[in-house]
């Protein structure tokens, strides 16, 4: 489905990704984990055409899509939910949703889909005509997640959906992703809430210092003691608290 070949890239003159390579099969859910600042979000930006890629290739279903614009990526059936808050502040909830389907051809179908996501996240219907900026943090996140589901994507890139969402909604989002996978959609997700995320994923990917460290079946990663210690909240050995190499293990 998606393959990254030895991606190098970063911000301005600074290189963040030092050779990221992996491939995800179709349909599947892959969760990316790694310490803060490992470059997880940067990988997503690289895929979605938002990063200055210095070298390497991004392949989507075998086709080279390196350095294509976000608009083109959407055209290929990829949608992206970035980390943090990403709504259009002064537009209403409904119009924010509608923007999520701005590239859709079939308006009637789009309206139906908007209805469907509103069923899934009832808050959206309740606050349909409120400005997005007025929503609470978690409500905005719901809006964003819902927005990414409108277009019938082939691949969803979703960066830490659990931030700000209440536990029942996190479960709801995970269930939705599972359902989508069963309908043939691939999901690439970053999650710090790694145990829960890996538990529902097919594959896990460990990213560290801008490189892929491990890429395994999710259950194996969950069982790996090194992973448990480093990323799942195990205790850090005192000797590992080096200042320059914060993640040494």
């Amino acid at each position, binding site marked *: 489905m998606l393959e990254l070949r030895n991606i190098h890239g970063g911000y301005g003159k600074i290189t963040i990704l030092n050779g990221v390579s992996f491939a995800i099969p179709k349909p599947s859910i892959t969760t990316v984990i790694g310490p803060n600042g490992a470059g997880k979000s940067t990988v997503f930006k690289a895929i*979605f055409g*938002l990063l200055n890629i210095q070298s390497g290739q991004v392949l989507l279903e075998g086709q080279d899509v390196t350095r294509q614009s*976000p*608009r083109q990526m*959407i*055209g290929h059936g990829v949608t*992206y939910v*970035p980390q943090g808050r*990403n*709504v*259009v*502040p*002064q*537009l209403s909830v409904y*119009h924010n949703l*509608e*923007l*999520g389907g*701005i*590239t859709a051809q079939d308006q009637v179908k789009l309206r139906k889909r908007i209805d469907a996501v509103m069923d899934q996240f009832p808050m959206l219907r309740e606050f349909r005509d409120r*400005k997005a*900026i*007025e929503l609470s943090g978690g409500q905005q996140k719901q809006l964003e997640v819902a*927005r990414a589901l409108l277009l019938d994507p082939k691949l969803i890139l979703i960066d830490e959906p659990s931030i700000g969402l209440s536990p029942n909604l996190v479960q709801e989002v995970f269930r939705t992703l599972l359902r989508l996978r069963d309908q043939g959609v691939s999901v690439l997700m970053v999650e710090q809430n790694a145990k829960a995320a890996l538990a529902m994923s097919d594959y896990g990917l460990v990213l560290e210092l801008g490189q892929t460290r491990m890429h395994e079946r999710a259950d194996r990663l969950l069982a790996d003691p090194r992973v448990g210690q480093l990323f799942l909240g195990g205790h850090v050995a005192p000797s590992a608290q080096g200042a320059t190499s914060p993640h040494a293990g």
Partner: protein
Amino acid sequence: MSQFLQVFLSGLATGAVYALVAIGFTLVWQAAQTVNFAQGEFVMVPAFFVLIGMHWLGLSFWVALLFGFAVSIVVLGLLFKKLIVEPILPHGGITLIIATMALGILLKESAKEFYGAEAQPFPAMFPGDQIDVFGAAVSLRDLLNLVISLGIVILLTLFLNRTRTGRCMQATAQNPGVAEILGVDVKRMVLYTFLINAALAALASFLITPVYLAKFSNGETLGLIAFIAAIVGGFNQIRGALVGGLLIGVLDNLTATYVTAQYRAALPLVLLIVIILVRPQGIMGTSEGRAV
């Protein structure tokens, strides 16, 4: 009474012109979150394009008008967007504002160098017939200005809020990053904004130059007053520009007639400062929502 009516109605007519220019400010703000300090010059220049068409190319007035309109759209819309807005916009509002100031000088000086410093007469599109309204003389042209401003406010408001393209333009202005990841054609939206702005400026130019006369320095005062009108109206509402423009036109005349001519420029400013301090979002503006 007829004196009051006279200055009031004249103030409305002048205010309608301010409004027309002020709409440009709000539009650019709503669609690109920046302020075009060359807006006054954008209204000054199209009249000169028409004059060039008439006097240098020998076109008839109506053909020259079309010519001027087309050239304005290309120069003030397309070229402005491509050469100035696009490269500078990502680096933030203030830089672009300064660039538009420089552009204002450029347009002004060019008009002067190539067409002369003296004011030129400019033919009117509509007859200046006068009507008597309870003893006050009002020209048909004044009424038309008012009607056209009103019409444009309504049309633009509908366009921005009721059409998908209009909302895409707003999204682009408010959060270009998000607009981009949602697949909005950001560059095209910015282009639309500036094309519409250029068209409005040209229209304003054709409407007011018969009265204001074509002169290189017309933009200075006009741009400034329109800027003030846009702010007073709230900047984030197209209809605010209309209210702000009319208010300033009327206030200025009433001050000059009944209070003080020497400080006629001051009293409206003081009033407006008070308004803004009491209602920081402007008269028609809505608050921008949660900050925390």
